[in-house]
């Protein structure tokens, strides 16, 4: 099958300015060389902790920020090389669902205006057809036609996120990038939205790039999962393989850190020492080595490359065999 999205060597370095003449004194390597392939119809998760670059990856793919380097092939076309207007036309096919359902809807517009705008700017349909489209979509996401004339502040967080999803669906995109779409919601509402996303995946044959810090949520929704640490993917595999055979020490620690809702569960927790290093000044070699219990001299000097350890299971660790044997 032809991949829908192929990201190659994607980098996003933000300059750090200093002094009166705003001299560039360094770079925050938010995304530091990412390769990622998404096939039509699948849901790929990107997990990682704050500052790992997962959200920036999503935004860079969409060119909400211009990439520093790398290719973003969408249906074979490199988005990073498109002219502004070409990119604008292309946005029809890639949509985004944002994290904060309060900030992502313009407070001064009605839901109707918000949803119609997508269709208007791409000149899709007559005004009658547009209205019909959004009336259908609003019901697909579990709200009613009557809601269209209200403003965002009339809705609860969960309802707003439904509106955000409706906005992403209106253009019938080929790919949806969802950036922490449920992390601002209460658990009982979160499950409503997760179920909605599952339904929509089936109904519209959606391809989804799902960015989240919550491993349980990612496991629930995704087919394949990539784990990011300091701007790089450290492990990527089928969901089942990743959660059953985590082969990177960081993935292991991340999995073991999730509190289990079972007071009787045995806890063999790997506590990572120290904090996340600054992406402006990442450690040498393998960027995880200062917090890694498997680290050796080699890890301090040589950065490991992603290598295949099983079918579709890639890990970037010098000691993955040792790590795997402890699972």
């Amino acid at each position: 099958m032809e991949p829908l999205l192929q990201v190659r060597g994607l980098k996003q370095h933000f300059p750090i300015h200093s002094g009166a003449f705003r001299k560039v004194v360094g770079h925050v390597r938010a995304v530091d060389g990412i390769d990622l392939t998404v096939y039509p119809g699948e849901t790929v998760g990107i997990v990682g902790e704050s500052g790992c670059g997962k959200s920036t990856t999503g935004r860079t793919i969409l060119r909400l920020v211009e990439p520093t380097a790398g290719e973003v092939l969408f249906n074979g076309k490199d988005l990073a090389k498109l002219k502004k207007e070409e990119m604008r036309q292309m946005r029809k096919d890639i949509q985004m669902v944002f994290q904060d359902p309060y900030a992502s809807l313009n407070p001064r517009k009605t839901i109707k205006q918000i949803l119609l705008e997508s269709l208007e700017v791409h000149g899709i349909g007559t005004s009658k057809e547009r209205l019909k489209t959004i009336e259908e979509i609003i019901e697909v996401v579990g709200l009613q036609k009557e809601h269209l004339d209200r403003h965002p502040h009339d809705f609860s967080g969960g309802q707003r996120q439904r509106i955000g999803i409706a906005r992403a669906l209106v253009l019938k995109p080929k790919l949806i990038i969802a950036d922490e779409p449920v992390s601002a919601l209460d658990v009982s509402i979160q499950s409503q939205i997760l179920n909605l996303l599952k339904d929509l995946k089936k109904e519209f044959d959606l391809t989804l790039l799902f960015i989240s810090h919550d491993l349980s949520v990612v496991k629930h929704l995704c087919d394949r999962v990539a784990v990011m640490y300091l701007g790089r993917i450290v492990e990527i595999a089928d969901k089942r393989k990743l959660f059953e055979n985590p082969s990177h020490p960081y993935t292991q620690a991340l999995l073991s850190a999730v509190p289990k809702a079972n007071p009787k569960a045995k806890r063999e927790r790997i506590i990572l020492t120290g904090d996340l290093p600054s992406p402006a000044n990442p450690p040498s070699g393998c960027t995880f080595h200062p917090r890694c219990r498997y680290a050796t001299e080699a890890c301090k000097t040589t950065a490991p490359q992603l290598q295949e350890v099983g079918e579709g299971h890639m890990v970037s660790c010098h000691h993955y065999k040792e790590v795997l044997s402890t699972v």
Partner: protein
Amino acid sequence: MKSVLKFFRTGLGLIGAIIILALVLTAALAPVIAPYDPNAQNYEKILQEPNAEHYFGTDDLGRDIFSRVVYGAQVSIKAAIISVGIAMLIGIPIGLFTGYYRGFWDEWVVMRVIDALQAFPFLILALAISAVLGSGFGNAMLAIGIGFAPAFVRITRGQVLTLRNMEYVHAAKSVGVKDMRIIFGHILPNAMGPIIIQSTLAMATGILAEASLSYLGLGVQPPTPSWGSMLNQAQTLMSVAPYATYYPGLAIFVVVLGFNLLGDGLQQFLDPKTRK
């Protein structure tokens, strides 16, 4: 409707609004309110102290000061609206575009020019521009407007810098909305609150500036009554007819106070931080 009520509950804002309303009514109904033609000279009744016939007295040409103050309201309103209008027309687009696109023009050209302009006291700047353009009401307005523009560039740009990073702006962009529509459809409406507050405060300064320029002879030309030019003419008579300075001075004070109160009231009302 509820929010309008809330605004009036801010008290001082209401007083400000009443003063401004009174000013607008006075200007509009000047021919009805004023008992005399403001420019009619009457050499039999020069320099009369305030009395039942001439509430505020008469000046050295025998003109009724009350009527002139009433007609002066027209000039003040015009001054406030035109000068601030010019400033907004210049300042808001510059603020919107530099703030949205950033880059070299924003940082090294526009902002540095504005720094330079704002280094002058406002009145000196308006005076200098006015001196270059020549005297007259229109040129005075242009001078004041240009003098105000940097403040509007700054406040608009500041708003845009925040708003351009709002998620709903990203969302609009990711849907494929063109820049112009994002700037005027999404950013500007959300930036209007602080701009409106700034404009009421600027109107107060605008009235003062018009009065100052007129006082210096660079604004409204005689015989049209303006509070500033009235003060100018009255100051030569300070020793014989001090009352001639009282009333235009008082009018300026009250109206400037009114605009400032209105601005404060709007601020409390529009600022989400103080709004419950």
